[in-house]
């Protein structure tokens, strides 16, 4: 959003219709007004952006250098004390292993989304219905999803009942052990976010010109070959975006495990741990530092990823 919106309105008034004669230079007042117009349009969104995004981040940065407990009027400047504490306590970073489950799940998620996006981009019966069905979970509030799946995984709940229909009576406690709980939660995450990836892929696939498929069919290319040589290269930028979103998402999982298990049974993620530091143990300073570190880690991971897989221009034709 920040990349595109500021440019578009700026450019629009400056471009004269292609075949109109060049207008005489406008008087000074008009030019100032013209320069000002886009900023007037931007005023409200920018004000929101600064108030609700940048100001809190600056605040958080400031808190991370203090020992504030979140309430007391007294707070002391502690320098980099919080950061030293963070990096001398390796146990605080062990929770990142949990992100591994979500990372693995996001591979599945991207594969599934890509599969359905490809199939539904061809002429299939009820394709609009299926599009809706796939995208629907993404529209549901995350907290509601947490509660729904709590019933789903209950002993004798939906999952057990469905399995029983097929004659499987496992009696397995789905959230009972760390491995099982994390796999279950990661599964919920796949269910929720596949729709988003699916829509991104579908949009990218549909922006590929139709003639290419026709030409390919004339040349005798099958579906797999069309996917391999037209679709896959055509959606590469969106694919790499999805991977970035998945990686950073896996590092900062919060809603689903927080609502469903509260971080119990080895499902605690870095963000849950940070929230607990801030709101259970009243170490707002340390928690702010942890949040800053998470931000830096995500920036770093994204940067490395962009270096490894540069986002070069795609030219199908």
């Amino acid at each position: 959003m920040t990349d595109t919106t500021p440019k578009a309105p700026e450019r629009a008034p400056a471009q004269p219709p292609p075949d109109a004669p060049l207008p005489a230079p406008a008087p000074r007042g008009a030019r100032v007004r013209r320069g000002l117009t886009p900023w007037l349009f931007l005023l409200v969104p920018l004000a929101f952006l600064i108030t609700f995004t940048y100001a809190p981040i600056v605040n958080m940065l400031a808190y991370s250098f203090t020992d504030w407990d979140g309430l007391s009027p007294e707070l002391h400047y502690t320098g980099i004390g919080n950061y030293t504490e963070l990096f001398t306590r390796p146990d605080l970073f062990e929770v990142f292993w949990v992100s591994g489950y979500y990372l693995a799940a996001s591979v599945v998620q991207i594969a599934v989304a890509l599969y359905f996006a490809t199939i539904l981009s061809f002429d299939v019966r009820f394709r609009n219905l299926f599009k809706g069905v796939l995208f629907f979970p993404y529209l549901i509030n995350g907290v509601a999803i947490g509660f729904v799946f709590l019933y789903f995984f209950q002993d004798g709940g939906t999952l057990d009942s469905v399995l029983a229909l097929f004659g499987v009576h496992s009696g397995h406690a789905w959230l009972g052990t760390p491995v099982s709980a994390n796999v279950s939660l990661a599964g919920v995450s796949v269910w929720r976010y596949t729709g988003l990836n699916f829509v991104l892929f579908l949009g990218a696939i549909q922006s590929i010109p139709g003639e290419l498929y026709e030409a390919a069919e004339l040349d005798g290319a099958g579906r797999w070959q069309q996917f391999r040589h037209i679709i896959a290269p055509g959606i590469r930028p969106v694919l790499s975006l999805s991977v970035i979103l998945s990686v950073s998402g896996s590092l900062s999982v919060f809603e689903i495990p927080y609502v469903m298990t509260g971080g119990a049974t080895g499902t605690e993620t870095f963000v849950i741990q940070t929230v607990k530091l801030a709101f259970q143990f009243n170490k707002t300073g340390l928690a702010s530092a942890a949040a800053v570190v998470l931000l830096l880690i995500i920036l770093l991971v994204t940067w490395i990823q962009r270096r490894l897989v540069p986002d070069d221009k795609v030219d199908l034709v």
Partner: protein
Amino acid sequence: MSRRTVLAIAAGAALVLTACTGTGAASKGADAKAPDDPAKVSGTIKVLTQRTDLVQDGTMKKYAAAFNRTYPKVKVEFEALTNYEADVKIRMNTENYGDVLMIPGVVKKSDYPRFFASLGTRAERAEKYRFTDFTTVDGKVYGQSPIGVAPGFVYNKKVWREAGVTKWPTTPAEFLSDLKAIKSRTDAVPYYTNFAAQWPLTSWTFVNGSVGCDTGATTKLAEGDPWAKGSDLRVGDTLLYDIVHQGLAEKDPTTTNWELSKPRLAKGKIATQWLGTWAVVQFRDAAKKAGANPDDIGFMPFPAQVDGKFCAVVGPDYNQAVNVHSKHKEAARAWIDWFTDKSGYDRDNLAISPLKSAPLPDVLKPYEEQGVKLIELDDTEGARVKAIDDQSEVGINKPDYRQDLVDLARGARKGSLDSFLAGLSGKWTEARKTLGS
């Protein structure tokens, strides 16, 4: 595009973690005096409460109407907060946090004078009220709990009888063998942890004082090792471990449901839960709704005796206080006094009255018959225990460590009970040293 992702995440993280910075210096040391003439007090006061249920079903309005019979010119408004602790904490960064509120756990005792108006000196209030030293700073009292609660096991009498148990167990070992009898002779789940709801597990900390019948139990936490051999918390935690370890708790603790646990206990599908006197009224209501007999809901003390007698700790619930910035302190004070002394809130909740002169509620009649000794803990070191608890990140009043304990007991976590408790001791002792004692 990647920048957008990062910004979105940063915004999310920032939203979660930032509170506003209204930490300006507050006026220190105001008094909320009781009005002399009830007819003259006026103003609109806002009462913040955690009892969303009572605000929704109109019970609080009824209290306000009764209050208006004595104080006709005071208008009382209620604001119920679902997530009370977290919401109030953020609002207390401003001056606008109601006229009357419950003191949230996050406020340091030494900060009470900054946030709340004093209700009077400890010397004068202690004659009439219980629990005064829980909110006393420098001889002045800043809050008053409208009810007193005692921890204990809520149990289904019928199920326990069917299992052949008629006497309250007197030792943890006896308690365990009773639960085993329930398991083998009835269909009930002997014990329900309420693991997923989290907070019910924290009530296991209230065994502190009940086991050793010691009014100085809180001071012991501040000065010693809470998990030393034979100490109260260790006895309690070991019992919880054994219950789960020996398969006497529900099959899948991770998906428990607090609301459903009430009718299930009432109907005899669950035999026992460790909660408190405050829970009895809710379970009796659930029994009525489920068509079960409310009289089957019983209440028993922790299975430990000193000199042949059980012991139960009576403690305050949330303490009500007057906002130091309130413009109608007299009216606010009038509400607290009336709510504490005359509203009948304690009786409605089958709770212990905050007035020293009042008789015990019906729920505790069996306690009187059995000669259970009721004690109050000395809270002089309460603030230090809280500081050590936060610093060590053990969280004796938080669910996490007991969830880990239950996971350990049912084999979802590696390690032995001894090393687990030793780990807690280590963290606690280290934090105590860091804070300097």
